[in-house]
């Protein structure tokens, strides 16, 4: 009784703590939710349950080593995080990487994006009460992770990028296995649509829920599918092409519904585009070196460098400040999840508590990316 009274504010609102162990947060996110009946009045995120201060640790690591800490940020976009850091160092050293490395990096990025979206799709279904998507998502994701394992030796934290290119060449089976995967996945994608996209229960729970206006999306610095569902074009691969993305043909899916369903549609369409990119590249991997020649100890010249990549969640920015020594002076990761999370309160206000799960699921939060 006493506890119950403590949870009621002076104005008669009810405060509940969602997380840090709530199943739908997919990690240790703690939300303090103020409710009026079942209607959400305020959502306040409390972070830090998995804060490791990767930025501080990087200041003590060499330019070769700090890259691998970033695999532990957004672990579902590990390859893209590594790529962003490698690119920051390459920018500082003015290092041109071989064509072969660029193409393989793109291929790996798109495979990572697919794997991430498949997990998201499965988990979204699970959050909204459908169990089948989880198994179907994992069925396809498994194939990609096996390809990663064969080439990189790891399934999740791949650590495949080094400043100057790639750590080693692709496995001889790589091309064949990716083609098999593409063939299977293209057959499976209609199943995805069958199960959720046209499902009336799913549509009822997502359409018109969690509205984020374009003005708010921009002001909150949202990127990735969250901003694109609000009609904002923000694909880094289009705006600031890197590592050869200017040479491939793909579209940036944009929706204007601003709700959970739009965010869902954008990600489904992104999967189709990733398939399209992989198809263009898989038969055209150039021969040659996979790594540029670099010194053993890298010293990035004094200065400031900013690079960004499009991860599965949005725009990851790496702000590298160098003082000319062998380790970064200051490194800041502008992670997409952190900015997307800041919009949660605005999106959730006025919705019912049950919808909060749908909103969080379509934000596609990865907590270590937010806490760092």
């Amino acid at each position, binding site marked *: 009784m006493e506890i119950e009274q403590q949870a009621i504010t002076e104005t008669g609102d009810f405060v509940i703590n969602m997380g840090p162990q709530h199943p739908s947060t997919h990690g240790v996110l703690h939300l303090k939710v103020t409710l009026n009946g079942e209607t959400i009045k305020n959502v306040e995120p409390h972070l*830090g349950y998995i804060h490791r201060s990767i930025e501080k640790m990087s200041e003590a690591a060499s330019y070769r080593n700090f890259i691998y800490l970033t695999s532990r940020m957004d672990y579902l976009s590990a390859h893209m995080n590594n790529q962003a850091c490698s690119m920051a160092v390459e920018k500082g050293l003015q290092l041109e990487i071989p064509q072969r490395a660029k193409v393989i990096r793109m291929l790996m990025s798109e495979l990572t994006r697919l794997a991430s979206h498949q997990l998201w799709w499965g988990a979204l279904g699970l959050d909204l009460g459908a169990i089948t998507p989880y198994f179907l998502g994992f069925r396809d994701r498994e194939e990609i992770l096996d390809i990663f394992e064969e080439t990189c030796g790891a399934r999740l934290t791949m650590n495949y990028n080094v400043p100057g290119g790639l750590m080693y060449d692709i496995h001889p089976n790589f091309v064949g296995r990716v083609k098999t995967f593409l063939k299977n996945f293209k057959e499976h994608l209609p199943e995805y649509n069958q199960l959720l996209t046209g499902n009336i229960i799913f549509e009822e729970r997502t359409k018109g829920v969690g509205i984020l206006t374009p003005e708010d999306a921009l*002001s909150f610095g949202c990127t990735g599918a969250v901003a694109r569902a609000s009609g904002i074009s923000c694909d880094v691969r289009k705006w600031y092409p890197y590592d050869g993305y200017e040479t491939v043909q793909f579209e940036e899916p944009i929706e204007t519904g601003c709700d959970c369903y739009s965010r869902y549609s954008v990600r489904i369409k992104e999967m189709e585009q990733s398939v399209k990119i992989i198809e263009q590249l898989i038969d055209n991997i150039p021969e040659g070196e996979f790594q540029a020649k670099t010194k053993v100890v890298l010293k990035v010249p004094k200065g400031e460098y900013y690079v960004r990549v499009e991860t599965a969640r949005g725009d990851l*920015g790496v*702000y590298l400040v160098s003082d000319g020594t062998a380790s970064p002076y*200051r490194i800041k990761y502008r992670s997409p999840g952190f900015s997307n999370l800041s919009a949660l309160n605005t999106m959730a206000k006025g919705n019912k508590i049950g919808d909060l799960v749908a909103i969080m699921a379509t934000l596609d939060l990865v907590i270590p990316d937010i806490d760092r």
Partner: protein
Amino acid sequence: MINEELKQFISQQIPEAVFEETQFLNAVIDSSKAHAFLKTLRENPDTQFDYLFCESGVDWKDFFYVVYHLSSNSHKHILVVKAKISDRVDPKIASVADIWKTAEMHELEIFDLFGIKFTNHPNLRRLFLDDTWGFPLRKDYTDETNMVSL
């Protein structure tokens, strides 16, 4: 606007601004003028910096920088504003959360890790760490047991 025009525009606003050229144009200004200046950048139709894509702190031992990476969706130009805070004992700067909403969370992070106080912030609190921690991203921070060092 191209960088030269931006420079002229900034010099009119703040004559003592110092410019640095990295891949972007950098303008170094004093922290006391930051808020009014950033508001102008946001609202002036010629600059219209509507997107704060990164806000971070840098500790240069004698002073702090709060670095704002700004871009404009309509004009497609990018500008980096560095606000210099010379007071290390009680570092303070005005919050820009009223100009860009994303700043609210980014400033919480900077406050938590650098100890820079943001005045007029809607809800300034420790985001990751509890109140007894120091400010880990400061260069003079030491932790005997947990620290990773070369």
